[in-house]
């Protein structure tokens, strides 16, 4: 590797490192031939930015889940056979419960460290989903999913979807009152599927709810099928990440053709490897001091009992909320003997909505590229403000999700704030449609304003905080041109394309055979780029430079790294 500081002056084979490693390296390379791969990748460059850490949190919490989950399987018994509890937890002795629940009690009370590992596992699962969603939002709002990364985006959506199901399968396993209530919900959800609902229910539960096979089946899915899929998709996600090389923020020296950052070995090996321990340590500390899912407080599952305030894990909260605010639409068609009932009150929010979310997310990159006509490779990220319509769509989606999520806790909100639960439900019913529209409009306006602000700083300089008195006695705040690096970073973005109307007829009056589609596309493109503020032109920048040159202030004795004074008069630095 070329490396100014560590280029050895003596040939490698004569150095201590070279002599020591020659034997093992030779042995291994003659069998697996890895040297070529290592040479290519060991010094691979990754750019640095805090937001690139979010996906890493998801990756490391998945590793923590694998480690802790393996530990839990040593004792957990995925059986719904009812036994009489005779373990160390006094209040439950003599109660009938499933082996699954009894063995979870054993892990919590009899196995030293079992409770800790259970709680690490649960916290990591919550963190895994949170990190996936945060990472997805980062990728969305910066346009990192654009060509050539659309497939990796879809893999990510797959990870998100499977992660949801995996989490649900996991917290259903202990067979306590709360998890059983969750399964009862799924039972109702499966029944709502038109035409085949009751058959599916009997197949999934091996008979009537709850049956005695659902937990062994979920266990298989939870520890084998779904983690296997997750592992495979994560591997594909990482391979594509390495192949594409990481996106980077625009800035001095950074272009679409290069990637600027630190090498895999040693910097990222230490930083990312260290970060695994940070994530593991953090979840362990949470498990030490913050209780999660105290199944012994809920009791064994009993279909005739439920606790008020039953809540799913946080990442299922939005589905729960959608189910709560859905109007009670249900209708029946057909003659009495063969009538079919459609429970849209459950089917739409619980089944269709989840499918809709993942479908919309998966097709977004292709939809956007169709609208903008952009088929280029992109490796430089966009600031959210520089794609106002996309950002507005994203925030609208987040608002929809957020309102659903709030609705999922409507009973808790009603109780804590002493509000009327029906009112909250109605506010959410309206808010779920109105909220996203308002969020869209506001977000787009904010983005456009921020674009104007950027242009303003580029052409009129930044406020130095220095008040200058002119010869006539008037006071004005001196502006100074932005440092070149900052100015460059602000303008390193593509220009807003020219927007033209679709051609309906050619010069001879022949209708364009694709007229409607083209018109729709032209309209969508106009909508997408409408009011988008372009960066200044060369002429604008030259004129501004000229203007600054003629300006009597700022005082010319300012140092290079000066960037204004703070309110307390202390000079700031970039």
């Amino acid at each position, binding site marked *: *590797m*070329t490396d100014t*500081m*560590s280029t050895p002056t003596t040939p490698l084979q004569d150095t201590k490192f070279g002599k020591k490693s020659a034997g093992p390296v030779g042995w291994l390379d003659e069998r697996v031939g890895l040297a070529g791969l290592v040479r290519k990748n060991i010094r691979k460059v990754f750019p*640095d930015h805090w937001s690139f850490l979010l996906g890493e949190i998801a990756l490391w919490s998945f590793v923590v889940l694998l480690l802790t989950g393996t530990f839990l399987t040593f004792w957990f018994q995925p059986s719904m*056979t*009812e036994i009489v509890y005779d373990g160390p937890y006094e209040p439950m002795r003599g109660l*009938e419960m499933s082996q699954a629940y009894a063995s979870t009690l054993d892990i919590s009370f*009899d196995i030293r460290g079992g*409770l*800790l590992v259970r709680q690490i596992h649960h916290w990591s699962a919550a963190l895994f989903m949170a990190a996936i969603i945060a990472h997805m939002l980062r990728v969305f709002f910066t346009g990192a999913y654009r060509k050539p990364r659309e497939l990796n985006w879809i893999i990510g959506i797959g990870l998100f979807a499977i992660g949801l199901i995996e989490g649900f399968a996991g917290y259903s396993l202990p067979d306590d009152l709360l998890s059983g*209530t969750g399964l*009862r919900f799924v*039972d*109702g959800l499966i029944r709502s599927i038109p035409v085949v*609902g*009751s058959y599916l229910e*009997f*197949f999934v539960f091996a008979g*009537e709810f*709850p*049956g005695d096979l659902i937990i062994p089946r979920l266990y298989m899915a939870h520890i084998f099928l779904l983690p296997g899929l997750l592992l495979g998709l994560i591997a594909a996600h990482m391979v594509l990440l390495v192949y*594409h090389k990481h996106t980077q923020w625009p800035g*001095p*020296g950074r*272009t679409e053709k*290069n*990637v600027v950052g*630190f090498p895999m070995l*040693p910097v990222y090996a*230490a930083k990312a490897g*260290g970060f695994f321990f*940070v994530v593991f*340590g*953090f979840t*362990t500390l949470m498990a*030490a*001091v913050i209780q999660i899912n105290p199944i012994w407080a809920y009791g064994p599952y009993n279909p*005739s009992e439920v*606790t008020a*305030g*039953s809540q799913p894990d946080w990442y299922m909260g939005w589905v729960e909320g959608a*189910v709560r605010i859905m109007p009670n639409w249900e209708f029946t068609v057909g003659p*009495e003997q063969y009538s*079919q*009932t*459609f*429970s849209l*009150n*459950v089917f739409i929010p619980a089944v269709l909505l989840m499918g809709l979310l993942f479908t919309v997310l998966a097709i977004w990159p292709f939809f956007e590229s169709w609208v903008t006509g952009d088929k280029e490779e992109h*490796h430089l990220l966009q600031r959210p403000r520089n794609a106002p319509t996309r950002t507005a769509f994203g925030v609208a989606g987040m608002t929809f999700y957020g309102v659903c999520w709030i609705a999922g806790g409507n009973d808790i909100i009603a109780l804590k704030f002493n509000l009327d639960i*029906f009112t909250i*439900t109605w506010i959410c019913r309206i808010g779920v449609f109105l909220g996203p529209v308002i969020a869209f409009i506001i977000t787009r306006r904010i983005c456009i304003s921020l674009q104007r602000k950027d242009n303003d700083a580029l052409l009129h300089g930044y406020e130095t905080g220095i008040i200058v008195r002119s010869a006539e006695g008037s006071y004005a705040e001196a502006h100074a041109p932005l440092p*070149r*690096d900052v100015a460059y970073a602000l*303008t*390193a973005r593509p220009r807003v394309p020219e927007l033209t109307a679709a051609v309906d007829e050619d010069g001879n009056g022949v209708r364009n055979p694709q007229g409607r589609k083209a018109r729709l596309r032209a309209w969508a493109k106009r909508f997408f780029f409408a009011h988008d503020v372009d960066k200044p*032109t*060369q002429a604008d*920048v030259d004129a501004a430079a000229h203007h600054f040159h003629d300006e009597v202030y700022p005082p010319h004795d300012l140092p290079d790294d000066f960037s204004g004074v703070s309110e307390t008069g202390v000079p700031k630095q970039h």
Partner: protein
Amino acid sequence: MSPESHDEQPTDDVAVPARNDIEPAEPIENPGLPEHLPRPTDVDPKLAKRAERQVAGMFTAAIVLALAFCVAYFTIPRDAEVFGWFSLNLALGLTLGLALFLIGIGAIQWAKKLMFDQEIIEMRHPARSSDEDREAALVAVGQGVSESGFGRRPLIRNSLIGAVAFLGLPAIIMLRDLGPLPGDKLFKTVWRRGMRVVNDVSGIPLRPGDIEVGQLVNAQPAILFETDSHGHALFHGTDLLQAKAKASVIAVRIRPDDIKPRKGQANWDVDGIMVYSKICTHVGCPISLWEQQTHHLLCPCHQTTYDLADGGKVIFGPGHRPLPQLPLAVDQDGYLIATSDFHEPVGPSFPEVEQNRD
């Protein structure tokens, strides 16, 4: 260094920053990578030494904490508590968590303060393969396909596609025994004519006098508490849970004047005592939040609200069907009994729920 070079030599791709090696940009020229500024630890050996001690200190503390974990594991009893927390969980979690955390922080501190920190540049290549590769790949695939005769021998091709497609049938058929067919199971519960309504915990049969106006009592069918001649419970384990998932009921007493019975259910109450299914018709949660004054019953899961004075009608929330009512009478000993099973399916709706199965 040549940015456009697509050759496979990785050495050509990685280089220390060159300030002018970039595409022209507008309206402001790309100024190139800012000059690398040394860190305090790069120029002051004392600070570097201090950072080294910090990192090693964190790693050493992790060793101590790992040992402390082992001590805690063997010395703290399982049931000891401190401030209402399980002592063992707290001690194991704090020692292990801090040990892991310190290793992580130490490694990151090492990278940030002491490792070579100049950013380097690697050139990207387009994701696509070269034109030659693409063409050669297509030629190779085309050659393989033509050598197989896949296109020339449609009989083989089509029958193979058919054979593999038909393998889907066994794969699907094999799943048939995942569970039985529903049959009439969703339409029936264990309630029968003459079965007593009993308290859900004690199993003691209820008399009308046990329930006051405004009161709600959780109840079950008596059969769930009965035993056979050997003293074994008739229902236990999964059978019991399945029976309870449909047969659980609530008994409420409402002033008879307030009751507006559903059509055909006029005499299903006993002096204002009515028994309703406890299972929500939305997604099946057991319902128990009872408002005495309004006769409203609220499901704690999704807030479907039923008016029990009005035939169990849904007055709010996502549930649709009214709560099924159990026809009620009093037997000769003065206990509440059912006069039949429910006349409609209980629990969440399903496609056949409105079919007439009598």
